[in-house]
């Protein structure tokens, strides 16, 4: 009982405080754009506890997961060689930094030009944002590999494939996990942005539509859903992380 209560206090304490603060602010400001929590809750129930969840949210989440997975593969796949070879890094970094600084609202039209306006485009938009934290963290994680450990691998004549698998990926995994965590929320954000273009359904599209239609409680309910989605996915990621990083100081029992 008390353990459950303590757990609940830990997980829910801060959110409850924040909701109360929001409530207080909405009561004081009386602003049209800051509805009170009950209003948002009602809007949430009306809006999302319906077929909308299946029609709008599910396809969005599917695209999000596809983009995220692709970004993870791409980020790690590129990050490892870039981290391992200083010359490749020197050559690739300016180009990558160039693309990294291009804002999605102008990148999206370019992607539309090349990939059309359907799901492919939306997935690519998600990839285009998610890949950076994973890539950068992978590169830095690979660069920071323990020298004694990599010398050990070299001494025992480990082939490239197994060196990648047993040393590089594992050794860089704490930092890669940081990148994966970053990318999760970036992915959700880009899911919304991608649906601001060439869409007629989707979670992000619906939120933007609410926003433009001045359906403010509904818009906040959508944001609430995004937050819950982020939280839910992060719990999954934490579970995964605990399995991957069980050996790391931060996770040892």
């Amino acid at each position, binding site marked *: 009982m008390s353990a459950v209560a303590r757990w609940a206090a830990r997980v829910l304490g801060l959110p409850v405080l924040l909701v109360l603060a929001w409530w207080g602010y909405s009561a004081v400001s009386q602003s049209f*754009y800051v509805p009170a929590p009950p209003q948002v809750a009602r809007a949430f129930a009306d809006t999302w506890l319906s077929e909308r969840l299946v029609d709008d949210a599910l396809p969005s989440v599917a695209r999000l997961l596809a983009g995220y997975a692709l970004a993870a593969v791409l980020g790690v796949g590129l990050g490892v060689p870039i981290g391992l070879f200083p010359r490749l890094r020197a050559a690739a970094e300016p180009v990558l930094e160039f693309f990294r600084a291009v804002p999605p609202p102008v990148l999206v*039209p370019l992607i539309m030009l090349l990939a059309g306006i359907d799901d492919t485009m939306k997935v690519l938009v998600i990839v285009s944002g998610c890949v950076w934290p994973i890539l950068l963290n992978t590169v830095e994680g690979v660069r920071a590999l323990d020298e004694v450990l990599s010398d050990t691998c070299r001494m025992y004549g480990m082939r490239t494939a197994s060196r990648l698998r047993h040393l590089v990926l594992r050794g860089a995994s704490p930092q890669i996990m940081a990148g994966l965590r970053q990318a999760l929320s970036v992915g959700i954000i880009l899911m919304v942005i991608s649906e601001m273009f*060439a869409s*007629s359904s989707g979670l992000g599209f619906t939120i933007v539509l609410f926003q433009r*239609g*001045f359906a403010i409680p509904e818009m906040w309910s959508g944001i609430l859903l995004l937050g819950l989605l982020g939280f839910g996915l992060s719990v999954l990621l934490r579970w995964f992380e605990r399995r991957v990083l069980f050996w790391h100081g931060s996770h040892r029992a």
Partner: protein
Amino acid sequence: DGPASGGGAGKAGGKDKVTAGVIAIVDTAPIHLGKAKGFFDKQNIDLTITPVQGGAASVSGTVGGQFQFAFGNVTSLLTAAERGLPLKVVGNGVSSTGEQGKDFSAVLVKADSPIKSAKDLVGKRVSVNQQQNIGDTTIRASVRKAGGDPSKVEFVELPFPDAPAALQAGRVDAIWVVEPFLSQAVAQGARPIAWNFADAAPNLTVAMYFTTTKTDPGLVTRFRAAMDESLRYADTHPDEVRDILKTYTKIDPGVLAKMNLPRWPTQINRASVEAVAKAALGDGVLKREPNVGALLPAS
């Protein structure tokens, strides 16, 4: 009044400091022109024009007290009013020419497209810059007028600048664009099949200037006066309009010289606003019958 930052209203040298949130497009040429001509100074208004990107931002900026006046299209304003936002229209913004083939807004298809008229849009994919807004409402009007079933048109959102490329690549069947993209796309081989603003209502009022119900009525009157003068001047001096466009847009000079300009009458076409409201209600864009009378100014 709102937080200190942003261009709030205030007195400067006996003049009212006023900030207007306005999209940097062809439609808003009069306010730029009027400012350049000193029409606002004449009304003791020290006007700052702040570019905004769309209706939602101008509405929230106005409600938040950042702008005293802003520019928004009819559907956006009707939606905001339906939601109970305390908005009040000041005066006309921009109107359709009402002439088929000579308006500033049209639905285009590829040169070799089998689509010949608005009726053929049924079952097809049409791009609009924003859904549930004036674009799809007026296109449905075109389809209805041509005898098609407007509920069977599929809309996707594409910003105007990106629409011609999507059309060329065959990713949509038709696009809705306004000037200068209209002239540009036509020059690149696209073919207009419907003039949706002209179809929707005779001399459709497309957008209006608005403020909040809290703004000082004296200031509103003076702004209206300056704005009306600007509209009249713009409507009668198309060359100066084309010149002023060079200052705040980057429209290619070749396109600029040839493109169709909208009309800028000072009178709001109430009937057209009510028609749009009715159509929007019918299409489900609006949920309730809006109180058009309360939104529009008395005269």
